[in-house]
């Protein structure tokens, strides 16, 4: 079937279906599932249904009640997705709310993100604020907290949490850091992290950490400015 463009520039609504380009610059509402090549939202859009697209760019405000399946999604405004997100690359420079699971090859968070379910990725890079309700599972995890980051559990091969570019005054006034129940990985470097348990092969606990239990197989290093309840080699 031939795919046509759907362009809403003022206020309007349309039904879902097969499209080539879906562009909403004003206020738009789409009823039903959408399958399109490109999606660009510059205004306010509500999509009642699931969205499948090759690339999605949201620079306004978008709400999808169903799931989102795409290769590349870039969020510069705000997005709310009612179910899961499955993509190759997830870039969030604004704010994103995902009510389901997020599964991607690469996740970049430069603003804030709230994921109710779990998050799976090969690479997870965050520089901002996020909360993950389930497990954050990625090959490499790099977190630079700019605010409060939170995940129920974290697992992966390399996990690095580093505080960067925060002035002394800001550190005093606001809370920066990461909290998680458990963090498990092969190589772990943590700063300003509070967790119940950290388990890994090579574990380095940096300044500002508060960890109840550390279990390690290879090496363990601890900064004098960190609080570690107990640690043992297993």
């Amino acid at each position: 079937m031939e795919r046509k463009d759907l362009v809403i520039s003022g206020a309007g609504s349309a039904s879902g279906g097969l499209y080539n380009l879906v562009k909403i610059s004003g206020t738009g509402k789409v009823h039903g599932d959408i399958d399109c090549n490109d999606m660009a939202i510059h205004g306010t859009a509500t999509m009642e249904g699931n969205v499948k697209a090759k690339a999605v760019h949201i620079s306004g405000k978008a709400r999808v009640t169903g799931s989102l399946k795409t290769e590349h999604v870039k969020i510069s405004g705000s997005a709310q997705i009612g179910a899961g997100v499955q993509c190759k690359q997830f870039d969030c420079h604004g704010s994103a709310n995902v009510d389901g699971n997020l599964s991607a090859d690469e996740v970049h968070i430069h603003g804030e993100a709230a994921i109710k379910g779990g998050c799976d990725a090969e690479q997870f890079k965050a520089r901002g604020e996020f909360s993950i309700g389930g497990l954050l599972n990625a090959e490499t995890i790099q977190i630079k907290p700019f605010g409060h980051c939170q995940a129920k559990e974290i697992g992966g091969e390399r996990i690095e949490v580093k505080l960067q570019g925060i002035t002394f005054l800001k550190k005093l006034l606001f809370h920066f850091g990461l909290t998680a129940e458990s963090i498990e990985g092969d190589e772990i470097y943590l700063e300003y992290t509070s967790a119940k348990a950290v388990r890994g092969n090579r574990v380095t606990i940096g300044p500002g950490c508060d960890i109840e239990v550390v279990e390690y197989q290879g090496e363990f290093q601890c900064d004098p400015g960190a609080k570690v309840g107990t640690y043992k080699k297993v």
Partner: protein
Amino acid sequence: MVEEELISKKELLERTGISYGQLYRWKRKKLIPEEWFIRKSTFTGQETFFPKEKILARIEKIKQMKDDLSLDELANMFSPNPAAITLHKDEIIKRNIVSEMSLQFYMEQKGERHTFSFTELLQLYILDQLLQTGEISLEEGKSVFDVFEKYYAAFQGRSCELLFLRKMGVAICLLVASGNDVYVEEKAKIIVRLHVPTYVEQLKLMMSEG
């Protein structure tokens, strides 16, 4: 039902010599099903446990095969989804996947045919295994086909179990989502309870070997 023996994550890593990174990678690639991650609270907080026998066997298998197959190929093998393969009748006999008798029986029921899809083969394979253990009779085997044909698709990749009940000589065949407790009345008896994905896996393994 007897409680399955569990193994903690720590113990598992120690015994198998794999790292956290590997375990999480395999989980991400769905080589280890989500339902095997059992969370329990212990005095040190929440800990993850696994069904001991299943996980040890699975990790052993992954370790053996990971040099020959990519992780995605492995994931395919372990997923409960049917493989997209069809096999010819002669091939099935030659590779000794099911006995000739079961094959004959199937064709008597469903008509003569030469190629078999994965789902059809799965029914056949399960029936064959059941017949060989002598737990059910040929006549009862028909109900296995029927229930599979009608309802297996409804599970869509979720794992399910095949239950076979008998009461006063009357047999009933059920397909249920796995992980549920099943209680039956006193006079009835569960003859067979088998985990379908295990058979899917075995079958895929047999097919890929040939």
